[in-house]
């Protein structure tokens, strides 16, 4: 029994056993002993998971040693998969494209439970109190809420619109203070808030006509502002969760108006909040540009030319740098913006298919997935030195457990 909670890799156990044997101790390692070995106890604060999207597997990584701890397989179709963590940072909840919701244990590196909750899903969130996991679905369009401990279904929120005759794909699902979830309806152009005070009876607040085709959204780290990016028109939709009565307003509505948008070969992502001081950085849609917003006034505060269409625009935790990756065909590089001068500080070329970047919690290193090289790379963020390189099969998202304690991640 105890073996199942031991974090030792088999190699570590065998190594230990081998050591004891060479000392002349005719030792047989009993299962019960494993948990008593020093390596059996460990925290999870420096762990993370890398999605191998084509093979339906995860690599567990450890940022203290920049090493891989092991692999977890059998997670189905992981295209566009994302992960949130339980508040004790022991369990990851993996949201797969095939509608799969999988709870994995970082200590045993096993699947605890896996359900198929819809035909086609896009992402998820964990509630403020850590008791609820919500999944946003494309097919059938809506949000489903599950008990985080058992994955028992608690609530089903169909994203109906147009007099209830249609169902919209749901994007940009985040957790918000007050045990609420906020999400956007791609087809309907709406933002909904679901209050889960009573998990079996969600109370909905709907905002209509927020703009055409919201493609993704984020919530600020203080949990106050929900910002949805619009694909179908210029600008972003902003909802102040402290003042719902003020409704949704448009940010940067005329920004880039009249300019010819380029074809978009990959939808940008809004994840987390790239903010430095009072400036926020967001990807422009269909332009080789990162846009800067003054978060005091929500007015434009600059535009930074970059080498491709931005996909992720991520601030280092201290806000001193913003790292940007790009859509096809410029997805072989990363550009780093100096947030003080708004200039490009560095251009890196890790290789074809740079899909995601994840900063270590205090920002001294960043993990980068390079899909076509079948590699995950770790860079120092001050010297841009390549610190480590780990094999991974077609890696996409990288998710560190520090997300467990952040609103909206």
């Amino acid at each position, binding site marked *: 029994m105890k073996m199942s909670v031991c974090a030792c890799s088999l190699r570590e156990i065998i190594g230990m056993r081998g050591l004891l044997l060479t000392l002349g101790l005719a030792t047989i390692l009993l299962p019960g002993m494993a948990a008593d070995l020093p390596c059996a106890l460990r925290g999870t604060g420096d762990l993370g998971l890398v999605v191998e999207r084509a093979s339906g597997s995860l690599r567990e990584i450890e940022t203290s040693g920049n090493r891989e701890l092991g692999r977890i397989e059998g997670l189905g179709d992981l295209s*566009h998969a994302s992960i949130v963590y339980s508040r004790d940072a022991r369990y990851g909840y993996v949201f797969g494209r095939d509608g799969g919701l999988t709870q994995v244990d970082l200590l045993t590196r096993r699947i605890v439970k896996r359900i198929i909750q819809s035909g086609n899903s896009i992402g998820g969130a964990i509630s403020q109190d850590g008791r609820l996991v919500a999944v946003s679905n494309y097919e059938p369009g809506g949000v489903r809420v599950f008990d985080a401990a058992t994955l028992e279904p608690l609530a089903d929120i169909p994203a109906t619109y147009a007099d209830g005759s249609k169902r919209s*794909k749901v994007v940009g699902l985040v957790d918000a203070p007050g045990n609420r979830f906020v999400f956007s309806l791609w087809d309907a152009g709406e933002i909904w808030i679901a209050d889960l005070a009573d998990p079996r009876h969600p109370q909905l607040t709907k905002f209509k006509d927020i703009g055409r085709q919201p493609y993704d959204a984020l919530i600020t780290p203080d949990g106050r502002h929900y910002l949805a990016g619009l694909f179908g028109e210029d600008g972003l939709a902003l909802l102040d969760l402290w003042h719902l009565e003020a409704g949704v307003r448009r940010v940067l509505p005329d920004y880039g108006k009249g300019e010819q948008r380029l074809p978009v070969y990959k*939808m940008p992502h809004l994840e987390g909040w790239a903010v430095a001081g009072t400036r926020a950085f967001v990807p422009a849609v269909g332009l080789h540009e990162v846009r800067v917003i003054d978060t005091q006034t929500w007015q434009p505060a600059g535009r930074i030319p970059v080498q491709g269409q931005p996909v992720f625009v991520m601030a280092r935790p201290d806000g001193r740098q913003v790292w940007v990756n790009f859509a096809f065909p410029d997805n072989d590089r990363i550009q780093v913006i100096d947030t003080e001068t708004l200039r490009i500080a560095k251009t890196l070329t890790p290789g074809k298919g740079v899909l995601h970047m994840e900063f270590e919690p205090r920002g001294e290193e960043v993990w980068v997935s390079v899909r076509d090289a079948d590699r995950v790379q770790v860079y120092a963020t001050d010297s841009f030195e390549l610190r480590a390189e780990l094999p991974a099969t077609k890696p996409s998202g990288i998710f560190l457990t520090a997300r467990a304690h952040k609103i909206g991640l």
Partner: protein
Amino acid sequence: MCRHVWPTLGLALLVTSAVAAPSAARQAELLNLLRQDCGACHGLTLKGGLGPALLPSALDGKPAAFLAATILHGRPGTPMPPWRPFLSDSEVAWLVRQLQEGVQ
């Protein structure tokens, strides 16, 4: 009217006529593009995402010329972009056949 008919007809001829198949190396690249880059919107297994499913059952009844035109020119008013800058007519014809037959 003619302006609209002729390019489509031209495409239909292109798609149905026996065009040279891409080299084996290029085919591997195209399949990778299909899974990874088309898959960004249509799903890695092409069962659909923000974009519609591209499985043979979903494409059933849609003419090859229509599919080729969608890939080459995109669909204005939707997020589907034109892939003309990256793909030749014969490569698109080959991709359409893969989609119709089902990609392994």
